[in-house]
């Protein structure tokens, strides 16, 4: 399963879900998850899973993209099922883990059918009233975008530091791994700040 696409990565398409704007999609996901938590029954989890599955089919992004959203949860979900089963019984285990899977699958569905820029636009609109208390929604949106971008950047830097370790035959050591990774991450942040300033995004 190492060839699955990264979770949350936008998958271009022309489906109804792709055309639906970000705000209503996020509200719909919020409504479904709230209902799931309030009802808290196995049949509700079944309905949630059916909705998520239908959503991915309608989006037409393929099973690999769908699986990529929940695959990173597999070990955590397995442990959680065992713990919940032991502590609260099988129904609670199904409801808790099922609700978690539905939440992640639906959040992933929003991510793969919505450009980050569209989500940021929705956020900027929704956070508009915060201008009155001195918050700049554009800046917060830019911060969120950089957070999303940081995931592949930092994982790429981590891979390079790890490869440098292997190349020099160094044993695994959190200090010799963490220090260069931190330094390189800070240098990247510095360069990114300079690039943002050059693009006029700091005025």
């Amino acid at each position, binding site marked *: 399963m190492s060839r699955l696409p990264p979770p949350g990565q936008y998958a271009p398409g022309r489906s109804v879900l792709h055309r639906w704007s970000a705000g209503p999609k996020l509200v719909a996901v919020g409504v479904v998850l709230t209902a799931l938590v309030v009802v808290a029954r196995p049949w509700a989890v079944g309905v949630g899973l059916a909705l998520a599955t239908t959503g991915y089919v309608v989006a037409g992004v393929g099973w690999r993209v769908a699986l990529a959203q929940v695959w990173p949860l597999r070990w955590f979900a397995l442990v959680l099922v065992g713990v919940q089963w032991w502590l609260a019984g099988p129904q609670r285990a199904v409801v808790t883990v099922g609700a978690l899977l539905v939440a992640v699958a639906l959040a992933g569905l929003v991510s793969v059918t919505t450009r*980050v820029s569209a989500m940021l636009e929705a956020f900027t609109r929704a956070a508009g009233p915060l201008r009155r208390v001195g918050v700049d929604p554009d800046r917060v949106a830019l911060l969120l975008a950089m957070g999303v971008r940081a995931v592949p950047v930092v994982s*790429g830097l981590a891979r390079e530091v790890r490869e440098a370790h292997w190349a020099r035959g160094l044993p695994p050591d959190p200090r010799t791994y963490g220090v260069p990774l931190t330094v390189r991450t800070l240098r990247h942040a510095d360069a990114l700040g300079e690039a943002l300033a050059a*693009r006029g*995004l700091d005025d």
Partner: protein
Amino acid sequence: MIRLEGVSHRWGDRLVLDAVDLTLTEHRVGVVGANGSGKSTFVRLLNGLVLPERGSVQVDGLDTRTETAAVRRRVGFVFTDPDAQIVMPTVAEDVALGLRRHVRDAAERSVRVESALAAVGLAGLADHPAHLLSGGEKQLLALAGVLVCEPSVLVCDEPTTLLDLRNTRVVMDMLHALPQRLVMVTHDLDTLDGFDRVLVFDGGRVVADDAPAAAVAAYRALVSR
């Protein structure tokens, strides 16, 4: 026109630019020099990324110290490492980023993004994840992100240093085809063919200022001393 008058600058105790006076009116200006010679600081002055400790820098009559935002809209900057310039997850979104504050109309943003991507040959990659592009494509993306803001001057700090021969050629052909004035720092002396003027920096001063062939000869003589 770009004018530097009596510009000096220090990083800590180190003097990196020493009383530089220059007037640049040419279409393509190359900048060469050894590491630490002051050339990167020089080009950062042109966009207002660095403000001079002494003296003044003006771009088309705008002072970088007092009219920084206007200067940055006029002067686009392309860095050596395109990875440091990519913020958004997909190609089109990253190009559109520079327009967020200045162009509120989504339709106009979209048209300008398509046009910028077409100009650098990335039109078919609009929805592609930006971090999965090749090195050359990333540098072209960085270039599109600058061109979409329609600058009148383009400053490039070693834009081909991390690229292979083919991508260097692609990026250089692109830069030569642009109507914008170009100021480019490079260590690849072959890329200076066709430039109008080349400045050679050493120890924070311009030690040669000539047509490419003569300036490159002066630079070679300098490093072989």
